[in-house]
């Protein structure tokens, strides 16, 4: 690799202060440190530094996302072949999936990368590697059939409004990838919701529906449904929920036609956003980022607990008032595999900058994520996917949670010393 090193050394003077290409120094710096570990030395003590840097932590998140990406590519092809009755082979499905996913990635990285470079040149700071993760996440949380111009617009929105106006990576208050998605969701709802956007090149036949698991189990409260046997046992094994959905299907008010067994949702060969459907793939990634310490296990566990508690609460509440909303009766293990719960918890909620900065706060924050997700999913049928809004909501509350934890810490210190 010596010749690259020599080449970089040769062109470096042109980017230095006072030289012709001074303004493009961030670009040179990014390329230089991308290829070789930086040449900086410790100016003050300690004189020995760890090998970890932000690039490394970011690339680990990207590595953890690879199972989701690979599964997503396959699943896009699989759904395409299923709904078009094509009986594709394994490889054909992957090729079809790539045709859908690659252009989205290209758009995201071109548009987002340009925004990053523009900001770093204007602001004269180094190009941050934060976009590596954001850019990798955005396509995974978009529906396969999303128009590329919507992807481009929401990436710009996510990078600029979600991150750069606050000062860049480390200063943002909302997760940039989720900001991008929420922009598309509210600005172009037809491309982001309904029962036809979740499959790539969905045939435009009347009556054909490919709803996400959540959409097919949610829908508006079904009328004329009699709730029977609402025991805790029936709630836990899912039969109570099935009963409500089934009755709704019989009246024709709910969606049907999707395999809603727990195993199939766990594996993830169902319609949905590109990278979020498979819980197995997410769990693989979870292993990597938790072991390496990049993601906080506290957030993950407490989100899970928050989700379980809330689903129980809703069951008790729903059966007390005799609600006919099927989501009220969805047992926790279904919440776990449906929609993007796990994907959101592992890759979005754990983002260190936008979650709480105190260790105790992370537990409250996680509980809030789980709680808000299930509440939005169940109570508000207009937004079947509550994870996105749940996390953004918790992001907004993170500074407040931190504030109270810090106040508590200060009070404890004062009490300890008063003795």
């Amino acid at each position, binding site marked *: 690799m010596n010749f690259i090193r020599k080449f970089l050394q040769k062109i470096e003077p042109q980017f230095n202060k006072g030289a012709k290409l001074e303004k493009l120094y961030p670009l040179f710096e990014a390329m230089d440190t991308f290829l070789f570990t*930086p040449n900086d*030395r410790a100016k003050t003590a300690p004189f020995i530094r760890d*090998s970890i*840097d932000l690039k490394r932590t970011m690339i680990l998140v990207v590595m953890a996302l690879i199972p989701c990406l690979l599964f997503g590519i396959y699943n896009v092809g699989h759904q395409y072949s299923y709904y078009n009755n094509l009986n594709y082979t394994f490889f054909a499905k992957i090729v079809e999936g790539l045709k859908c996913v690659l252009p989205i990635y290209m758009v995201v990285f071109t548009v987002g990368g340009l925004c990053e470079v523009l900001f770093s040149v204007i602001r004269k700071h180094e190009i941050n590697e934060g976009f590596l993760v954001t850019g990798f996440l955005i396509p995974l949380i978009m529906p396969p059939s999303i128009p590329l111009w919507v992807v481009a617009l929401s990436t710009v929105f996510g990078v600029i409004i979600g991150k750069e106006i606050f000062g860049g990576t480390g200063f943002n208050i909302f997760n940039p990838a989720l900001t991008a998605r929420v922009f598309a969701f509210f600005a172009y709802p037809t491309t982001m919701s309904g029962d036809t956007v979740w499959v790539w090149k969905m045939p435009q036949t009347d009556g054909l529906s490919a709803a996400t698991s959540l959409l097919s189990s949610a829908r508006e409260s079904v009328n004329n449904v009699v709730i029977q046997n609402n025991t805790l046992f029936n709630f836990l094994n899912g039969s109570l929920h099935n009963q409500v959905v089934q009755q709704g299907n019989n009246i024709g008010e709910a969606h049907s036609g999707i395999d809603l067994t727990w195993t199939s949702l766990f594996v993830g060969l169902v319609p949905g956003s590109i990278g979020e459907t498979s819980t197995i793939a997410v769990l693989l990634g979870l292993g990597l980022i938790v072991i390496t*310490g990049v993601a*906080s296990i506290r957030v993950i566990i407490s989100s899970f607990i928050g989700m379980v508690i809330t689903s129980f609460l809703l069951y008790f509440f729903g059966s007390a008032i005799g609600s006919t909303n099927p989501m009220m009766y969805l047992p926790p293990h279904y919440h776990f595999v449906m929609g993007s719960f796990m994907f959101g918890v592992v890759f979005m909620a754990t983002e260190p900058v936008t979650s709480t*900065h105190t260790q105790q706060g992370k537990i409250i924050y996680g509980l809030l994520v789980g709680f808000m997700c299930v509440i939005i999913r169940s109570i508000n049928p207009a937004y079947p996917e509550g994870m996105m809004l749940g996390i953004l909501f918790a992001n907004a509350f993170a500074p407040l949670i931190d504030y109270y934890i810090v106040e508590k810490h200060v009070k404890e210190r004062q009490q300890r010393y008063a003795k």
Partner: protein
Amino acid sequence: MSNFKITKGHTLILNGIPEKKLIEISSSDIIKINPHDYKYIKPKVLLKINDEVKVGTPIFIDKNDPDVMHVSPCSGKIESIDYGDKRKILSINIINDKKYDQIELLESKKLFSISSIKDLGNNFTRKIINEAGMWPLIRQRPFSKIPKFNSKPKSIFISMNPTYPLAPDQLFILENDSLGFVEGLDAISNLTEGDINLILGKGQDPSLVENLDKVKTHSFSGPHPSGNVGIHIHYVDPIVSKDDTVWYLSPQDVCKIGKIFIDFKIDTTKTITMGGPGCQKPSYLKIVLGTKLEHIFNELELVIDENKILISGDVLSGKYTNALESLNVYHECLSIIKKSESRSFLGWMLPGFSNFTLTNVYISKLLKNNTTANHNMLNGSKRAIVPLGLWEKVLPMNLLPNFLIRSILCGDIEDMERLGIYECSEEDFALCSLICQSKIEVSQIIQDGLDLMYLEG
């Protein structure tokens, strides 16, 4: 005796651990004194060039606290005084005649017996210590500075178990010269109404100080920084406010103070360790304070070329220095590390089979090949704070480092106070800067915060 078990932190292991063999370095021709080894000092030189000095002759004072004497460690005459910008005094060079004639200690002439050191009283003890120029050996927290001459601490700490890399084994030093240790403890116990807290490491025997009232022993075990005095104070007698001071000094300085009370002799030597991956002869050295490093290297026939980096103090909290300088008066360690020029290709993406890291992000951790560090590369570029929780992992104090650092960065004095800035010292946060993935200079920021608090008060 109370036991404290520290779990957070990491004991950094460097190559070149000093061999337990004490080498006496002969007197050098020039003794170099750097007044700015003492924090927050405004030195005023009392002598002119060519003035004769003896051991114990006051050389300069601090304008802020003129009672405290800074004395000469050798006899001879002043060779030169180096000035920097705005006539800041950088160093005072003394030609050493190697006779070590000592001034007469007036206060000590008043006779007393060794057994009655305890009854000397606060004022008299202070005067004796100060006259011999030993007062600056004592430091106070907060601020790690010389305490005011007329102040009283709530307690005094003496730590016997330094855990920083290449730290000297204090018991080994005492084995070689423990004269005055008990007398020194007796003397400094006159300086406070509180306790003398002697901190022992794991397996160290407290019998050394048996039967001394006022001396309490505590045992601290666990990884670095469990040997830092800041951690000991935090657990044993925490600092609440700016005026709530605790003093501390090193065991060998206790001996020096004790020696004045035994035979009125001013001891100007010091035992240090020298080691590190760039050092060919890692060992314990006995030097005269102010000895230039080049003198040590010449005597030991060490080759210090441009590929080696000299650090006065340890690699975690020391300062860059060069062969023409002398060791900082408070440092008990001289570290020599290597310079590295190699920049690894796509290092951030590779598995990293031999990368030095305390985290789990490289495979080297799995292979247990992650402990060798011998150069001063930053291994990354500076970024904004991304709170991954790494600082908290290596800081065994009940503090919120993330919020403390932010309050310092925005100069919010009230918040800094509430979050416990007075308990902090930059050396306790060294591991935070070491492990930080955004390469934030945590210890430097803590130091800046303390400077701000000092100036404001």
